[in-house]
């Protein structure tokens, strides 16, 4: 259980940040850079008033840049072990060519945080689930390692932990263990504290600014405004899974 003192401190900090964000919104309406204001306090349940999502601009995503991948690996301490075939890949870079036109573009692929996730549909124990705010996660306590979710995911977004994770590589941001399935958590540990996912932060830090994170249900959020203004699509939109990750320029 968490320390009550720390909780109070966190709540204080949250109030301060929340007030700051509210002030920012008042001073410069519509120019909010962070979604801090919509982060929920730790003592309140996740709500479906938010739906967290990503907008990825493939015209800004640089070919050969893998800052997002590096940031993810660092955030969760995903270390290579026995080769790329079995190593965890929570996010990967993909270069695509349109065979009809010859146009190429680059994009990051990760768990698409579907509204109707096939992984959660097929999971026998309910270990794969979607939080009310749209983040798709694996409950490592009840995952039996059957890998049916990996068969069902149309994006190959999930990895099976093929080996023992050395004690020194274990990381507080996500529990990981041999024999369970895992995937991008949309940095839920950060999102719950009002921060951006590590990949988005890295992409912005690199100056590419190809990724926007935010609340798809908040019409005032940057992501919602961008989605309303410019055309975008979801990968395998034909499957009607309504992923929370949108792409521009595909």
């Amino acid at each position, binding site marked *: 259980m968490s320390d009550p003192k720390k909780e109070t401190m966190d709540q204080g900090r949250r109030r301060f940040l929340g007030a700051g964000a509210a002030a920012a919104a008042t001073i410069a309406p519509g120019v909010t850079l962070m979604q801090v204001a919509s982060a929920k306090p730790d003592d309140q349940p996740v709500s479906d008033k938010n739906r967290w999502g990503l907008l990825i601009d493939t015209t800004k995503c640089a070919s050969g840049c893998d800052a997002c991948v590096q940031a993810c690996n660092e955030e969760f301490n995903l270390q290579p072990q026995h080769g790329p075939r079995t190593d965890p890949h929570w996010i*990967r870079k*993909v270069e*695509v*060519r349109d065979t009809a036109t010859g146009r190429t573009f680059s994009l990051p692929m990760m768990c698409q945080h579907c509204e109707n996730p096939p992984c959660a*549909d097929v999971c026998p124990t309910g270990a794969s689930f979607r939080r009310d705010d749209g983040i798709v996660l694996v409950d490592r306590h009840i995952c*039996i390692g059957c890998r*049916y979710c990996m068969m069902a995911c149309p994006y190959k977004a999930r990895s099976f932990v*093929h080996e023992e994770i050395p004690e020194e590589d274990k990381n507080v941001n996500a529990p990981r263990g041999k*024999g369970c399935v895992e995937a991008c958590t949309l940095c839920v540990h950060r999102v719950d504290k009002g921060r951006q996912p590590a990949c988005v932060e890295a992409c912005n830090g690199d100056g590419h600014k190809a990724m926007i994170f935010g609340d798809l249900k908040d019409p005032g959020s940057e992501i919602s405004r961008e989605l309303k203004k410019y055309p975008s699509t979801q990968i395998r939109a034909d*499957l009607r899974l309504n992923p929370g990750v949108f792409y521009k320029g595909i």
Partner: protein
Amino acid sequence: MKKVRYTSIDGRGGFYALLGVLGLFILAGLGAAYYMEHNGHWVTGMDNQTVWGLPHVFAVFLIVAASGALNVASIGTVFGKAPYKPLARLSAVLAVALLVGGLVVLLLDLGRPDRLIVAMTYYNFKSIFAWNIILYTGFMGFVAIYLWTMMDRTVRKYYKLAGFTAFIWRLILTTGTGSIFGFLVGRQGYDAAIMAPMFVVMSFSFGLAIFLLVLMAAYDWTGRPLGEALLMRLKNLLGVFVAGALYFVIVFHLTNLYATEHHDWEKFILMGESVHTKVFWLGQVLLGSLVPLGILYSKAGRSRAWIAVASALVILGGFATMWVTIIGGQSFPLVLFPGMEVVSSGYFDDVAYHTYSPSFPELVLGLGGVAVALIAVVVAVKVLNLLPSSLADADVDPHHKG
């Protein structure tokens, strides 16, 4: 027709030798499972592309065959065919044994087999896998009751009801097994409603082939008479089932060939350069279907040895079918961008197909599952009165003209 007398087998030297050999396979299988669990799945041929490997080929084959093995009993009870009735006890026991063998493999290949209790206590009722857990346990229960009504006169009045229930349950069970693949929307090789009935017909074929081999071995090794006419009935039925399964395979591929979006997948399986194309044509179609059909419906089909060869080939074809379905289905990369091509990827999206080489421990685990199924049958025929003392035609068929 005389009254059928069921007796347990004597079980002398050969019996214990057989137990010993099967026991060794089981021990080896357990050792392989321990090795894979202890080290993690990286020591197997499986990876994040091919997440289900050879153990699943064995497990799904055994589970599919299990429901099919019950057919012989069902034909007697549900369809009232008298010559099949004396075979019903063995049919029921073989069905449960094959299911247990398959489930053992499936369980021991889990990432966390120690969490079996979680699988039994947490249910996501939208999951076809969760339904299957209920279908498997239900199958064992219903078939056990069915067997009880066959063996205990005091509950004989429930025999028909139990037989019908087990028959309907087994149809649902195989529908569930086929739907494990049929319900996968994201993969080209699956996502087809036909997979459920196709698996049902395949189960008829695989289950009967195993039943025939077990029956012939049991009667040969114990020196009990096994009638010619009865065997001819069974082998003709096997031919019908093999042809039926092949028909479903043809319809499955024809439907895909008609739809442009599936052309790449069909080209990969039917004309590709991967091992799956060879396994499909040589294993599933030629050796697993056409050759057995040729044997069963030619003069050779009158010989016991050839019937045994045909049955063994159907089983081989069954493994080939499961290989193509399970491994081949995963081998074809996911279509992430229809109409576009992935030029490069940090995670094998840019390959023509994913490769998979099964490791030795996976094979040993699979064979261990087969041994579990067989040892259960061998022990059952020793301790229970399952086998009629004689299956000579005059003893089992009221219409037999000697």
